[in-house]
């Protein structure tokens, strides 16, 4: 039983990393039906930026600065890659454009920080904490807690603030929101900013566990994409559940079946969800009237 719980605990930690990134996909999809395919790069650039700041500010003070950086980065992505595509009502222009921007970010990062993977100083002690026979690293708890806190903060922002309400209104019906006097273009920019901000935050959260480098987000962003599809691209709760399902499925399969097949159940789940419930476990079924 302890083994099972240990596997679940480790799976939850990995799953929350996926969920934190997938949350960023969900934010922009809700407002504009577009995604930033450069989310992995936003994560890497955020982490690298944080790594540069750490020697001057320490870990905790660095976080707000990285959030501001991510916020700006998201606005740039939206202006350069997404807005032109939406303006000409292109169905897929933004896909190419965000991928292209992602590649550019990666190359710029490689030129600034080099292509080496750099270790990120851990703000917490390395010794694990034991709870009922299950051992967890303090850093893993920080990842889970930090990711949940971040999602909660965004949810509160959406529900309570006037800007957040505009975001929700735009998500529900972009045309009606526009008619009600909401500047939907700005709302979309805002959603991209928050999305990249969450990615940059996720970057500095996971960096002490992984390594920091321009390619650190590539595998994570892909897994997060699967999470977003499993959970539903329009639901914040969905990505958390999706992330946990994928993370736990990976560690359990690794132990009970084979570590060689660790990634398979996640992909099978992805196929099953796509064929049975294409909007995801928590997605709202959309009826598109033509």
């Amino acid at each position, binding site marked *: 039983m302890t083994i099972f719980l240990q596997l679940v605990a*480790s799976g939850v930690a990995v799953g929350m990393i996926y969920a934190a990134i997938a949350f960023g996909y969900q934010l922009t999809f809700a407002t504009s039906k577009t995604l930033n395919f450069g989310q992995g790069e936003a994560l890497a650039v955020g982490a690298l930026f944080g790594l540069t700041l750490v020697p001057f500010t320490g870990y905790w003070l660095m976080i707000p600065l990285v959030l501001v950086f991510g916020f700006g980065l998201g606005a740039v992505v939206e202006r350069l890659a997404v807005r032109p595509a939406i303006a000409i009502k292109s169905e897929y222009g933004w896909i190419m454009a965000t991928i292209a921007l992602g590649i550019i970010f990666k190359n710029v990062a490689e030129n600034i920080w080099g292509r080496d993977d750099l*270790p990120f100083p851990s703000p917490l002690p*390395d010794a694990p904490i034991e709870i009922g026979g299950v*051992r967890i690293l303090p850093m893993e708890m920080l990842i889970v807690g930090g990711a949940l806190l971040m999602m909660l903060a965004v949810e509160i922002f959406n529900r309570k603030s006037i800007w957040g309400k505009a975001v929700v209104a735009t998500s529900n019906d972009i045309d009606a929101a526009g008619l009600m006097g909401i500047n939907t273009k700005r709302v979309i920019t805002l959603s991209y900013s928050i999305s990249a901000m969450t990615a940059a935050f996720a970057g500095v959260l996971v960096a002490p566990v992984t*390594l920091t480098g321009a390619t650190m987000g590539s595998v994570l962003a892909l897994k997060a994409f699967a999470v977003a599809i499993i959970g539903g691209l329009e639901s914040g709760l969905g990505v958390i559940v999706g992330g946990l399902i994928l993370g736990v499925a990976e560690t*359990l*399969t690794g*132990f009970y079946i084979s*570590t060689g097949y660790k990634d398979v159940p996640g992909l099978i789940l992805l196929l099953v969800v796509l064929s049975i419930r294409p909007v995801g476990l928590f997605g709202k079924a959309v009826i598109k009237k033509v």
Partner: protein
Amino acid sequence: MIVTKRALVGALLCATALGVAPFHAAFAADAIKIGLTGPYTGGSSSMGVSMRDGAKLAAAEINKNGGVLGRQIQLVERDDEAKNEVGAQVAQELINKEKVVATVGFINTGVALAAQRFYQEAEIPVFNNVATGTVITEQFKAPDYDNNYVFRNSAYDVLQAGMMVDEALRQGFKKIAVLADSTNYGQLGREDIEKQLAAKKMKAVAVEKFNIKDVDMTAQLLKSKEAGADVILAYGIGPELAQITNGMAKLGWKVPMIASWPASMQSFIDIAGTNGNGVVMPQTFIEDKSVPKRAAFLDDYYKAYGVSKIPTPVAGAQGYDSIYLIAAAIKQAGSTDGPKIRAALENLNTKVEGVVTTYDHPFTDKDHNAISRNMVVFGKVQDGKIVYANPDDAKNASTVRVKEKSSN
């Protein structure tokens, strides 16, 4: 000067066949170009950069002492980014555009396998100084090929796998868990370990796999633990090997770990921190100044690159030696002609004093691996440095180990 008739005819034939020979003559005093390829960026760059810097040091020394055949050595550096396709491109560029007479390098087995066919076709010797895949020197083996242009002065996988298994048994471990990464390198190494175990009528209690950039090893380690493993044999590169030691620390389950040689990479030391202490791995070279030649090499390296430690000592030392071996072969061949250099390498008459060992006839036409098992020792991670794992090796460090005649 006596010119034999045959040589004259040969020269004439060459001149007519190529048509460009007269131009070549004009460049006779030019530098001898040797390709130098490896990953200088990315995850395996600590190996690539150490190898490159070691090789550059050797070339600078040779040039200072008058070069080879009265010509200077010019190293043409290219970054293969540890990517197979980039490695293949680099090979073609070095051969066709830069016209190198030989190439040294390759850190990654996959890159070596993808790139060295171009050298084989062009009949240019290619010298693996770090990559360890056993198949590397067997890719163009006789009888399928008349001549094999691939040489190596690193400890290949079968040799390392054998050492790892023997070390585990020597220490009295019975239940062995094998963890290997999912790349060519890791899986070929795992295969070698399993073969070695089978030869001893043993079977690993757990054989697990992990991916590059995996951050969580809980499943792999718990399976090993449940199987009752008392030692872990790990085949992978620095970052993931470090995740294994960190995972063990997290689970509070600590068994000895015997790793493949990349556990001496800086990235392993950085990420594993104190968790990495005590991990042992096969090494051809330990940063140790007991041999004058090695002390001089280390001092020069530290001075030239402003460091207090070689990022990956093995790669630096093997890179250094590879240039001396090639230079000796060019000197003996008296020419920069590929087939002649190959023939000279296969029958080196002079002893080449390197930092790994003194090479006495390191290659034959059948054996293209310079390193034999007796030259490899176990290194151990201790507080951020690699030291001798066995006190006896440290004591005997000043004895230079020479290749066993019967080996390989």
